[in-house]
């Protein structure tokens, strides 16, 4: 397949690994932001191949993992109302709130449906005019234009039985929070290629200057990730900072203009509570102006309450790159994908799940 197999070629991978080992004069610490990259790094054994040369730490880039318990609790309590259908992406259903997950609510009889595209939720609303259809809209900037579209259309078409629970997060404010932590050891970033495909690079230039740090916007295949690391190492070795775009086949300097316009039409930036990381100023999106009437939490009057049982999960440290999943005391002991203590063990993009699936042999 074009744009896939050539980026997985073993010779290219080998060449890049030896190039990185050759050019790194000290063991640099680099964080990849996106959970998709984390998975591919661990799956392809890139972290093992570079061990001793590059310390790859895994970032908060799993939208499902950072969705606060209170939002999940709100979705569950709405799903238990009469004549309501709750829709969301598959991963989101399995993550527990402060008690149950949406999947458990579904097993107990709630009408909870897995959708592939946000447009499916609008279609369900059109087909079920006597029911209230609630879309649990989670994601980073990558997903925001897609999630905005059914809201925009529901407004245009005056679809009254559609509403959304919005739990949208923005990456650059989280990078700023991570870099501002006193214990932060990160020396370079691989930024998430698909997030930047939508947003463009403006905020990344600001971050690179503010923290004097190299940021390489990177794709997802093994060759992309290794080229990203290689370019980051080159910048670290030459003591330069700034933004380099490794994923130029998809990422343009100004991002995707029509997608950005749609985000700005429907959403406004707001403070956001990240699960495990706490409140980060200006790091989320909320419905704005006339679109606020599609807010499901207001429509169904759900009160968000603080989580009732504080779990012993170390997700906060894992998501900030302060703790490797395999170094969590619960990892593969009391915490497994079947009986997860936290969201990073549940989601396909969570760092703990990636380590559990691919690298337990080497870490035990």
């Amino acid at each position, binding site marked *: 397949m074009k744009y896939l197999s050539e980026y997985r070629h073993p010779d290219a991978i080998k*060449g890049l690994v030896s190039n990185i080992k050759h050019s790194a004069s000290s063991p640099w610490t680099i964080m990849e932001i996106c959970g998709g990259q984390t998975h591919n790094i661990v799956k392809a054994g890139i972290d093992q191949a570079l061990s001793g040369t590059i310390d790859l730490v895994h970032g908060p880039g799993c939208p499902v993992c950072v969705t606060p318990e209170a939002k999940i609790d709100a979705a569950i309590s709405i799903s238990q109302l009469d004549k309501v259908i709750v829709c969301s992406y598959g991963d989101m259903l399995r993550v527990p709130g402060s008690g149950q997950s949406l999947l458990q609510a579904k097993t107990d009889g709630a009408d909870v449906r897995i959708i592939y595209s946000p447009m499916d939720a609008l279609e369900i609303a059109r087909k079920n005019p006597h029911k209230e259809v609630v879309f649990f809209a989670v994601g980073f900037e*990558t997903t925001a234009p897609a999630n905005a579209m059914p809201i925009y259309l529901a407004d245009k078409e005056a679809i009254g039985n559609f509403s959304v629970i919005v739990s949208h997060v923005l990456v650059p404010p989280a990078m700023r929070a991570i870099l501002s932590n006193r214990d932060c050891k990160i020396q370079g970033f691989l930024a998430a290629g*698909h997030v930047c495909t939508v947003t463009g690079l403006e905020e990344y230039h600001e971050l690179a200057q503010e923290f004097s740090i190299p940021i390489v916007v990177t794709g997802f295949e093994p060759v992309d990730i290794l080229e990203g690391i290689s370019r980051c190492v080159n910048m670290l070795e030459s003591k330069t900072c700034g933004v380099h775009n490794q994923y130029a086949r998809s990422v343009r300097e100004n991002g995707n203009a029509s997608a950005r316009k749609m985000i700005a039409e429907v959403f406004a930036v707001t403070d956001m509570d990240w699960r495990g990381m706490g409140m980060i100023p200006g790091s989320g999106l909320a419905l704005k102006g006339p679109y606020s009437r599609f807010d499901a939490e207001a429509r169904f009057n759900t009160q968000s309450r603080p989580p009732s049982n504080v779990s012993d999960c170390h997700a906060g440290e894992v998501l900030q790159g302060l703790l490797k999943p395999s170094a969590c005391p619960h990892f593969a002991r009391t915490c497994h994908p079947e009986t997860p203590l936290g969201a990073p063990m549940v989601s396909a993009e969570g760092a703990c799940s990636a380590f559990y699936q691919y690298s337990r042999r080497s870490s035990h």
Partner: protein
Amino acid sequence: MCLAIPGKIITINNHDHLIKTAMVDFDGITKEVNLTYVPEAEPGDYVIVHVGFAISKLDEEAAKLTFSYLKEME
């Protein structure tokens, strides 16, 4: 859920500017994709698709940069 993958546009289905869609081939599996955010894409183009929406058209010239980087290293 953040997964976004490349696919090749086979046909354009709908020319209404709001809901322009296309049939896209993902290595043998064909799916309908919303093209609203990449309206310039045409049959034969590769697009990155995320939750049913194309978010970019892949640029062949830029793709070659990775391979010239690999060459440079040799």
